[in-house]
């Protein structure tokens, strides 16, 4: 029996702006098992980042989690107060972001920032924290870590900064790491370095990971299970092999078909018609229906629900609703 580390249940995060309520995340449920890497894929505005921020209660006003549970080892993180959640952030669940330069404080050395992070959560003295920080810097492949400990963030390249972020995120041996587009801002050769580094560290530290990305290549390379989001909702969930071999949702199919392939020479790239909907103006019924090649009348009016189709897979589409399936 696999142990569930994180379970997000029926999460709704809305933004209450002057223009009205923007439902960025609308009833999202998924789970992360111990030692598992889960990928959340989707395009801009699909709610993948807001979902990850909601897990750690990092939603600022006018945003608010209006409903749902985020069970971490059985404990609901949403019910925790600010002090309690701070003990979890950066300690048992850490996060790395897309742009490492803005996530690091420019006026402190990288070493300083890592050992600070360690000292917040662990009872160690300054020297121990420093030793640990240097060890982490070495682990993430930063050359000459004793010297780089005293570097300021702006003196490092983008790849090195992301390594520092990873070192900081993993310094307290978190049980869960949330990586929000960790390689999007990096060049492809550096991305390959960081991905392989992450893979090795995960194996070593047994950390569970949620990777948020728009890049299906990164998903195929890294994750065990995939959650596909569209318009603030999960439209499909499956194991990575299952998803790429047998994509069920028309959106997933379209996404796979419209991804340019590096390992094929002559092929026709298909695209999904229409535009990515913006969260403040979602279509009625199934959110994907205006772009869906299989759209039926029913799709325009009624929103299908996410149904399990066995094999740890689930799908939210009228094409699959008539099967004998169980609701998630």
């Amino acid at each position, binding site marked *: 029996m696999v142990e569930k580390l994180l379970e997000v249940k029926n999460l709704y995060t809305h933004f209450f702006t*002057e*223009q*009205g309520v923007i439902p960025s995340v609308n009833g999202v449920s998924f789970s992360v098992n111990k030692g598992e890497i889960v990928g959340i894929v989707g395009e801009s505005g699909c709610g993948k980042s807001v979902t990850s921020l909601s897990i750690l209660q990092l939603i600022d006003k006018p945003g608010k989690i209006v409903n749902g549970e985020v069970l971490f080892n059985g404990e609901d993180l949403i019910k925790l107060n600010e002090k309690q959640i701070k003990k979890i952030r950066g300690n048992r669940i850490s996060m790395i972001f897309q742009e490492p330069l803005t996530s690091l404080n420019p006026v402190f050395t990288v070493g300083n920032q890592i050992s600070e992070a360690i000292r917040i959560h662990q009872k160690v003295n300054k020297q121990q924290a420093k030793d640990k920080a240097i060890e982490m810097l070495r682990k993430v492949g930063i050359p000459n870590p004793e010297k780089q400990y005293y570097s300021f963030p702006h003196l490092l390249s983008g790849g090195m900064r992301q390594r520092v972020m990873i070192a900081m995120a993993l310094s307290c041996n978190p049980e869960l790491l949330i990586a929000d587009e960790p390689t999007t801002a990096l060049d492809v050769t550096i991305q390959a370095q960081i991905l392989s580094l992450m893979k090795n560290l995960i194996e070593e530290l047994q950390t569970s990971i949620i990777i948020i990305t728009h890049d299906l290549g990164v998903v195929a390379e890294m994750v065990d299970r995939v959650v596909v989001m569209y318009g603030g909702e999960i439209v499909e969930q499956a194991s990575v092999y299952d998803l790429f071999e047998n994509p069920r949702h028309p959106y997933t199919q379209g996404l796979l078909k419209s991804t340019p392939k590096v390992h094929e020479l002559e092929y026709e790239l298909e*695209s999904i*018609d*229409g*535009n990515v*909907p*913006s969260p403040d*103006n979602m*279509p009625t019924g199934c959110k994907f229906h*205006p*772009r869906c090649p299989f759209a039926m009348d029913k799709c325009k009016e009624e929103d299908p629900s996410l149904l399990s189709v066995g094999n740890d897979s689930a799908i939210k589409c009228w094409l699959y609703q008539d099967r004998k399936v169980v609701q998630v």
Partner: protein
Amino acid sequence: MQANAESKSELNINDKIAKSKNQSTTIRGLKLLLQSKTGTIGFIIVICVVLVAIFAGVLAPHDPALNNLTATLKPPAWLDGGSWNYVLGTDNLGRDVLSRIIVGTRVSLLVGVFSVVLAGLIGLIIGIVAGYYGGIVDNILMRLVDSFLAIPSILFILVVLAVFEPSLLVLIIVIGLTNWVTYARIVRGEVLSIKEREYVKASKSIGTKSSEIMLVHVLPNIVSSFIVISALSVATTIILEASLSFLGLGIQPPDVSWGAMLTDGRNYLATNWWLATFPGLAITITVLGIIFLGDWLRDVLDPKTQVNQKGGAK
């Protein structure tokens, strides 16, 4: 086919915006005005002040320069000893405070508006040229700006006003000439950032002439921040004119300005508070009105601001 699908969803998505977009700019501006409470207040104040300035001669119940030694230092009408003949009271020479404020509006507004227009024009031209061409041109113009900034402006104004007879025109010119540097700096900064936008590059790549790029792409994109600064600047200039008059270097009698009234009233502050208070209030209200109006102008000039049904511009 694709085109159809796309345009359909596009129309769908922007349906709400579309309705407001098809209206003319004037209507859109007025709608935005009604949406913003401060904007409406500012608009009303400014319109009133302008009307008062224009029709000052008709509106003023008395001749503002007329001494009436039988009725000196009369308090406002609602106080003991006041009379409705002199609503806001009279000063030490028996001149009607209300009439003086009404007529003083002219000077304050004229100085405020025209010196800003003068400063703005000089600053705009120099700022755009310096920012757009860069290099030596920029260097020379900016050093000129620096040297202007190095002179304390109040000192400069004092010297000029000591040499020339202070008059409305001299005031406008001298304030305009000291203030243009601020505009030049701000405009240049804006131009520098806009110059790097890809649409300017795109226009260059099309083969558009530099002068046209400045007019079509650069100018419209700095105009909104420019107007907002100008509106605020009108406010500070009115205050500057008041301070100069307060120092006795502004408008000379028998002409009236709010600042000059403040100066006169200063000596009577403890005993006859209305002499300084009402012109002071006039300055405050006008300045606030202009600032409010400036905020609204910024919204109107930005095509991104949407008119929405629920109120409150974005």
